[in-house]
C-alpha cells in the first residue's frame, strides 16, 4: 500500500506514459522525447491543477 499521494501520481504517470509512448511511436529518439514530454505534462499539470484548486474549500 502506497500512502503517498505524490508517489501514486508519479507511478500512474510513468506507467501511462510508457504505454502511450509505445503505442503511438516507433522506437527511436522521437518516442523518448514524446515520453518525457507526456510524463512532464501529466505530473506538472497535476501539480498546477492541484494548486489552482487549493483556494476552494474542501467541504
Amino acid at each position, binding site marked *: *500500500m*502506497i*500512502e503517498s499521494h505524490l508517489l501514486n501520481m508519479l*507511478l*500512474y504517470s510513468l*506507467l501511462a506514459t*510508457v*504505454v502511450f509512448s509505445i503505442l503511438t511511436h*516507433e522506437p527511436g529518439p522521437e518516442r523518448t522525447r514524446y515520453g518525457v514530454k507526456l510524463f512532464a505534462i501529466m505530473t506538472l499539470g497535476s501539480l498546477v491543477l492541484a494548486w489552482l484548486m487549493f483556494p476552494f474549500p474542501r467541504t
Partner: protein
Amino acid sequence: MAERRREPERRGRESKGKAAEQESGPPRELLIRGVGAAAVGLLLPGLGHAWLGRLGRGAILFGCIAVMLALGLANEGGLATPRPGEPLTYLAAFGNLGLGPAYFVLRAMGAGTGSPDHPTYEYGTTFILSAGLLNFLLVLDAYDIAVGNRK
C-alpha cells in the same frame, strides 16, 4: 498526343482503384489475423503483440498493465460491479472487462473487493480501471499491426 491524353486517364483509374480498395477494408486473411490478434490480446495484456512477433513490445506492455493492476490491488482498490440504478458503475465494469479473464479470476478469488474506507481506495480503483482501459488500447493496436495499418 493521343498517348499524353491517355496518361491522365490511366492515372485517374489507378487512383480510383486504390481508393476503392481502401474503402472496402483489409483483405479477408488480414482481417482474420487482426481479429485473432485482438482476441488473444484480450486474454492477456501484451499477448496479441507477442503473437504477432513483437515480443519486446508485448513484454513491456504486459509489464505495465500487470504492475498497474498489482498497484491497484495493493492500494485496496475495488473491481467495479454493475449496480442497478447507477449507470456509471456499468461503464466502470465495462472498463474492468478490459482485463480479460483476470477480471473473472480475481472476482472468483474474492480479490479486488476493495475497502472504501481505506485512504488509498480511490487510487487503487483508478489504477485497476486504467489497467483495463489501457488494455483495450493495446487490443486495438494489435489489430492495427496485424492488418497492416501500422508497423
